[in-house]
């Protein structure tokens, strides 16, 4: 059972990684325009990618 001493922290660390990624994406404005994001992936003009 000693193995859980490694597994639990590992599981928590992975979860925390996902959480950090989620918080970053919220702060970076990834959820600001859900409707537009669905279409932007279909626009094939790469030079039109926003500069900011």
């Amino acid at each position, binding site marked *: 059972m000693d193995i859980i001493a490694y597994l639990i922290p590992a599981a928590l660390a992975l979860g925390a990684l996902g959480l950090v990624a989620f*918080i970053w994406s919220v702060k970076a404005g990834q959820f600001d325009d859900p409707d*537009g994001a669905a279409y932007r992936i279909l626009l094939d003009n790469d030079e039109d990618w926003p500069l900011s």
Partner: protein
Amino acid sequence: MTNAVLGDTHIASHQRRTAEVLHHTNFDAFVREKNGVKKLDLSVRGAKCGGCISKIERAIRTQNGVTSARLNLSNGELNIIADDTFSANDVARVVTDLGYGVSAQSASKAAAHQKAEESHLLVAMGVAGFAAANIMLLSVSVWGGATEMGEQTRQVFHGISGLIAFPVIVFSGRHFFSSAWSALKHRNMNMDVPVSLAIWLAFGVSVWETISGGQHAYFDACVMLLFFLLIGRFLDARLRRRAFAAARELAALRNRTVSRITPRGIHTVQTDDIKPGERILVAPGEQTAIDIEVVAGGSEIDESLVTGESLPRFAGIGSTVYSGSVNIGAAIEGVAISAAADSLLADITNMLEAGEQRRSTYRKIADHAVSLYVPFVHTTALLAFAAWLIIGASIEDAVLVAASTLIITCPCALALAAPVAQMVAAGRLFKLGAFLKSGDALERLAAIDHIVFDKTGTLTLGMPKWIPTSKARDNLHDAAEMARASRHPLSRALAAAAGPGKTAKGVEEHAGKGLRTWTNTQEHRLGSADWVGAGEHLKQDGPVLWYRSGDAHPVAFEFEDAPQIGAEKAVKELSAMGFELEILSGDRSNAVEKMACLVGIPHWTSAASPQEKAGRLEHLAGKGKRVLMIGDGLNDAAALSLAHAALAPGGAVDISQASADVVFSGGLKTIPQILAVAQAAKQTMLQNFALAAAYNLVAVPIAVTGNVTPLIAAIAMSVSSLIVTLNAIRRR
């Protein structure tokens, strides 16, 4: 979202109006500059699909000085970053030329605040979700290994769960705790009081259990409860922000400028800077933003948005032009008789406030549910606590039962019941081209039994249309050549009827009378009966243009304000749905009567002033009717705010849109659909509350008899939330 019903004439008329507004807005006044970098926020209307994004962004990037342009499709915000060489007016012109409505947005602190609140809720939700998943991981091991797991291992697992739960509860739950605290401070009760109590009680009990090596810890339940509640809060905040964005877009329409005449020349200034007595120039096509008295020039004034009168009126020196009227003739000069803050517009705004206040006293279904729920859970938990003490249980056991009662009767389902249903309905309305301004508007829309229509611009197009006659048809070509030189609505209608063609040369426009031109030595006139010399006895009843070529007999072109496409069908559908219908118009009685017959509405009132319209609404409300008012004019605004629920078309004046619950752009045919969506949403909400109540009927006996294990609590909470959500999504 691509299926939004567009392409209706209403959109066209809306764009026509905004194009005219654009003409007189100086966008440079709204550019913010910092360290040589210019920023401009525009509000774009009509962008609905991916094609719009690339079309608009690409067109703007080719403009001088623009370094970045990004269109947010969800709220129509267009953020532009540029350097010094950039001209805001050119950029705005590019967007209108593509066929979209555009207006300037001034920076707003409230919008930023709401956005911050929404993303805070989203982060809180994510944190709670993370914790719920990880604690559940540990809890499942505890439940699954109940017979094999050693007591110490279990204690360690509980300990880790508690260590995860504590910071998460503090972080994600502070929204609820501060709300509960402020309610208690004011000696009130809200839903957050039992929620906070349940969370901290359950947490406290679990800590005790963990320390004493007990079997049951409720850390997972605490965090899961928070997670579900935050989903509901987030959806609610999102809906509110959308509604707020719609209101802000409307406010952006009002960001207009006025041409002030001073001895040093003409300056463009913001409307609020005008003081009474200052001279103002009203250019052709401009909508006045201030009440003025004409001091120089004279022109035809379209007051259809102010009074509902469909025919333009001639305003000469000394006459008053109210804000909201459109100058369709020559340029006029006027003296401001009031500042923007106390114009006719502002008077109507004051009348609106009375209505808004009444509406805010409306009690939502969710509030009813909460007021029944809160005392119920508190009494149940307290009684359970007391009963267990009386039959001889220890204090720890009694507290455990009370805590599990609070947790299992958790308001998850209750908190999700209304927001999920409203979110689904708002999404359906958006696809219909309608914008919901508040969540409780759906409940009010679902309750109406009587519908009052405005005529001009709502039932009708608000634009005259030529009625073809054989005699007039022979002269249509020649008359249209003259008509193309004028922007009078009848001239435009005539030119539209004739299609594209030549424009006559040397056309003189005599305001209030008509047009004149010469070919060879022959004089051609187009205008009023007096202007062409047609006899009084030939005068018609509706709008008429007379045309006379040389000494030939004058020919009359008659016009009518045509009904909206689909008006008749919409009216038929609405009466089939069981609503009583009536028309309440400020227009002449024969025009109203004709329209009432045409679309099939038996009751009508004509020549009603804004006060009379408001009075009629009061009267109907006094009779116990729940009235839906549909109107677009300035003269309807007060009536709209007094109605139980109100709809305004997308082409309506901003103040009417602001006092409506839903702004629709798909034409009259969407009204029955909007009402159906509202009724379905209300039904879903009631079903959801019934489901939540039914769930409690089962859960409470289990809880008070002390049979709730953490496993049962977890299952019960998720199942009830899931059922409520699925029931709402079923209507998508």
